[in-house]
């Protein structure tokens, strides 16, 4: 496979994942705004931060309003991580690697972009927002389903999975990074329930409210939520889960190419770093831990680029 193709696959799936994550964050913000009486536009600041797009927003806007924040995240061409920009970038990468994709995956991706270009060409009215966001998730599921159902499990698949899980791990880590203070023992006595809205934000933004309840009941403690998002091996957006998938896919690549590149060692290291219990993480400082994970994910991504000749 061409290095360029590996690069295109990796980014196509990073952008697809990003579009979905951003859509979910908008839904979360909208839900909080609607269910919490007297919540100003303040929550949107942390939503923007979680999506990693707050700085860009501040550059182009004087003040923070809900409408503008939503528009920035949903369809701004100046925001490379907006849903529309991410879907356009995913489709652009898909065009570049078209020979590596099945017709089903290409058509699902192209159809998603065609829909988004039309639906997001104008500002989305608040009453249409739920429908539009739902459609983004639905289209993501379609691409994912086509990928799962039609793509060969070869190096092509490994690279696209690496993109998916690096982006997802990054997103979960950022959500934790922005919200870590909510989970700190100083805010709520250890073992006690935390503010409803805050836990809701966190779990909603990873589509895991139901999953959490199923596994941990309805008593939301910071410890359990952190445990769920960082260490739970069954939860498809937890850091542990994503890192294990990254390692698996690097393992597959290593064995099909018969090589042991540096990225594989880095993934193993990162997995080992995550192999601790939640108390140890809190003891060492949750914020420091998350920062470390984010840094290592970035490094791992760069090493993959080098090992598999994405650019040179």
């Amino acid at each position, binding site marked *: 496979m*061409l290095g*360029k193709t*590996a690069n295109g696959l990796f980014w196509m799936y990073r952008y697809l994942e990003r579009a979905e994550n951003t859509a979910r964050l908008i839904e979360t913000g909208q839900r909080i705004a609607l269910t919490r009486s007297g919540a100003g536009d303040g929550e949107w600041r942390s939503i923007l931060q979680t999506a990693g797009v707050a700085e860009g927003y501040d550059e182009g806007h004087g003040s923070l309003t809900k409408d503008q924040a939503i528009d920035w995240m949903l369809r701004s061409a100046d925001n490379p991580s907006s849903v529309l920009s991410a879907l356009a970038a995913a489709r652009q990468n898909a065009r570049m690697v*078209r*020979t590596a994709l099945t017709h089903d995956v*290409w058509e699902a991706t192209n159809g998603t972009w065609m829909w988004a270009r039309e639906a997001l060409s104008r500002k989305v009215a608040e009453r249409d927002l739920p429908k539009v966001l739902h459609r983004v998730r639905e289209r993501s599921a379609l691409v994912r389903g086509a990928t799962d159902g039609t793509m060969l499990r070869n190096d092509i698949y490994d690279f696209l999975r690496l993109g998916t899980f690096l982006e997802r791990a990054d997103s979960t880590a950022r959500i934790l990074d922005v919200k870590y203070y909510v989970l700190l023992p100083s805010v709520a006595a250890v073992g006690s329930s935390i503010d409803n809205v805050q836990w809701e934000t966190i779990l909603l933004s990873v589509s895991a409210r139901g999953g959490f309840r199923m596994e941990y009941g309805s008593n939301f403690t910071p410890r359990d939520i952190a445990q769920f998002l960082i260490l739970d091996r069954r939860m498809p957006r937890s850091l542990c889960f994503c890192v294990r998938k990254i390692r698996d896919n690097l393992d597959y690549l290593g064995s099909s*190419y018969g090589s042991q590149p540096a990225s594989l060692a880095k993934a193993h290291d990162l997995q080992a770093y995550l192999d601790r219990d939640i108390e140890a993480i809190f003891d060492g400082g949750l914020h420091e831990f998350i920062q470390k994970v984010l840094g290592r994910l970035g490094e791992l991504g760069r090493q993959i680029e080098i090992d598999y*000749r994405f650019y040179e």
Partner: protein
Amino acid sequence: MTNPPIFDEMWGNDSALRAPYSGIKDWLDAETPARLRAKSREAEELFRLTGITFNVYGRAEAEERLIPFDIVPRVIAAREWQRLSRGIEQRVRAINAFLHDIYHRQEIVRAGRIPLEMISRNEAFLPEMIGVTPPGGVYTHIVGIDLVRTDDDQFYVLEDNARTPSGVSYMLENRETMLQMFPELFARNRVQPVQTYPANLRRSLAACAPQTNGAPTVAVLTPGIYNSAYFEHAFLADEMGVELVEGHDLRVVDGRVAMRTTEGYKPIDVLYRRVDDAFLDPLNFNPESTLGVPGIMDVYRAGGITIANAPGTGIADDKAIYSYMPEIVEFYTGERPLLQNVPTWRCQDAEALAYVLDNLSELVVKEVHGSGGYGMLIGPAASRKELAAFRDKLKARPGNYIAQPTLSLSTVPIFTRAGLAPRHVDLRPFVLVSPGNVHITPGGLTRVALKKGSLVVNSSQGGGTKDTWVLED
């Protein structure tokens, strides 16, 4: 001057249904306009979703456009096709012999059949190719011969495309779309298949590889996703099952052209390039080019890679050389040309120029190196102002132009909002050449001028396409 009658391929000159179209007529009679309209929309949706688009340069907004597709097939009888393909094969063999001669002994010049300056002062002539024989002796691996029809048995070659003819993906997708939308049509009419083209292309390219151990590695070189024909490049690479590369994926490694893969550099044996000569190698040609591969020409001259089509083939599809094609065919095959050229005035000759200037409003004038329908004058359709402007251009650079009579191109019905209506068409059959073998896909790409009365079929100028059938015998 009275206009000659226009020949309609369905209804002939006298409104009597021509035999090859009987199946089409039965079908059209049985369909309702509403259903055909719905089918037309369905076809457009299919094209969009599949991404069969072309990019329009200089337009950020409408970056990708569809080439309009008309659902009424154009039909060619088996016998007509046999005659055409013999003529095409003869012409393509002559073109390859001509190219070899031009870059070696130039016998045709010595024999006085073509003036030396037509070669030596031609922009498309590549001195770097002098004395170079491509692997297998093949210059034009892929050729598109543009044909027009004016009568029941009169075809003309409008131009030869010997550089990098495009449009074959539309030929294939048009058929694919028709098969999906009207399967019953193909159950009732016996149409020769075109779907084997990608497999034939790969086989044909591989047969032209330099000496290799094992199966040759083939790749398609594209200028990138912003190129107008990117879809076609990706499509052909995909259908052949080969890599689609760009200049920055390639590098000369140990005397071979190699592509950067996830496992390191891997040598390529045959490069089907969709990049113009000038951009192929910044070390040997345009130093500004980022689309090519530095040093590829040196590898090529040393016999380390096959480039398809060979550099320098443009000299054979130059419009001034075109006017010598009857001589070229005779010179190299020893036979009378089976396909006719359109009578052509070379404006370089003072006498021809005078004639062209006097009769400008009845002629079609083309730039010698132009393509895509740009920079061309259609006399009968031009305004007085346009004619005057062109007259000045002709006087300033006569050698840059040729002129031809305005042919009354045949028509084929298209489906319009107001029902069926005749529109002018041309035909580009695709030809594959490998050592000792010329393969022509039955049919080709029919381009159709969608505007009533228009003779311009180019997709960049609002033309559309049709599925083209060659019936089984």
